[in-house]
């Protein structure tokens, strides 16, 4: 009951938030649109090149992850601490274990996002592939789950997750035949937020890389 009351109250009181004016400036906007379009060269239709199959992406992703794991083991060397040693350490508190679990989940997630973004930037036709968008959609869902979990309580990580949410949402929404400028917009977002650099600086040294 209280929930319903709150929803009703919220709808009523939030209605004023950014309430649009009753009069929409139709003609002024139309004039601006026609002026802008007239001043630009005719748009080039998006090219329809050969598409990369989802299988190729799956294979590429598997190879990347495999290579990353192999590299991780190689970099750790023979003297690295093994899981058995870790297990013999004094018992940690519940909160410490929970925190460590979310840390590991976050790092694993970030390596996957790094792999996706790297693949996206390397292939100019990436947005046309269904597998790429599906992959981005899955990672977008995971990003949001992490944002709502204790993993999102760390301020720096939360900022990174929010930026990733923004970039992944753009990739998910890319039209298969989107013009190059749309793709460039996503690239710019990746560059502007320095997403890849920040991901790489968050992933601990020796952790299997996503690329």
């Amino acid at each position, binding site marked *: 009951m209280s929930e319903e009351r709150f929803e009703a109250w919220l709808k009523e009181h939030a209605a004023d938030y*950014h309430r649009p004016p009753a009069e929409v*400036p139709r003609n002024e*906007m139309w004039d601006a649109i026609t002026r802008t379009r007239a001043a630009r060269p005719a*748009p080039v239709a*998006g090219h329809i090149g050969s598409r990369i199959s989802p299988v190729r992406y799956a294979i590429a992703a598997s190879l990347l992850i495999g290579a990353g794991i192999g590299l991780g083991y190689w970099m750790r060397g023979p003297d690295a601490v093994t899981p058995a040693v870790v297990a013999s350490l004094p018992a940690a508190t519940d909160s410490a274990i929970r925190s460590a679990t979310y840390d590991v989940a976050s790092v694993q997630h970030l390596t996957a996002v790094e792999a996706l973004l790297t693949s996206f930037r390397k292939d100019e036709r990436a947005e046309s592939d269904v597998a790429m968008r599906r992959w981005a*959609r899955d990672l977008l869902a995971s990003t*949001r789950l992490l944002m709502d979990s204790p993993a999102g309580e760390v301020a720096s990580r939360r900022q990174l997750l929010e930026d990733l949410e*923004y970039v992944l949402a753009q990739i*998910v*929404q890319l039209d298969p035949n989107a013009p190059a400028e749309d793709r460039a917009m996503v690239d710019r977002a990746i560059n502007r937020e320095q997403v890849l650099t920040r991901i790489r600086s968050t992933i601990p040294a020796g952790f299997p890389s996503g690329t």
Partner: protein
Amino acid sequence: MSEGRLSKRGAEVPEPDPVSESQLIARAIEGDPAAQRALYDAHVDRVYRLAYRVAGDDDLARDFTQEAFIRAFDRLPTFRREASFGTWLYTIAMSVALNGIRSIRRLRTREVALDAAESLGRRDRNADPDLKDRLHRAIEDLPPGYRAVFLMHDLEGYTHEEIGEVLGIQSGTSKAQLFRARARLREVLADFAGAWIA
């Protein structure tokens, strides 16, 4: 998005029927200015309303609306009719608006941070913003995904299925985002609980 649906709170402009809209699209692709204007007239109110809800500023809402239509007309030959023209257009509009406001907010945050640092000693710490300000600020502070769903559902009357199509998410995700948005607002506004409990 269902054709002919009227937004609960949105402008009461009926969408054109699919047959005539399909003809309009074909003519617009051929460069017929009258067809382009007709498509514009049929959808501009809702696009502008969405842009305004996101931006909260007339100039920005105009810019976003114009940009959305320019992109839509440029891309019209690639419109595949898998969704309705309206859904396709609103997807472009939301993308333009959310990306635009994101960039602007980043700039403003930096400016505000500087201003805040300069005026730290002058701030009135006893100032207690009223409920409306707190509510609006709380909406402003929602994560972008939550905010977009909240604006579209609670303020503009879109269904979760429509929101899912426009934002490229599952309708279940839209419901979850709305639930979380409301929960967060309720938490932030807990001081004012008497307002809705009474």
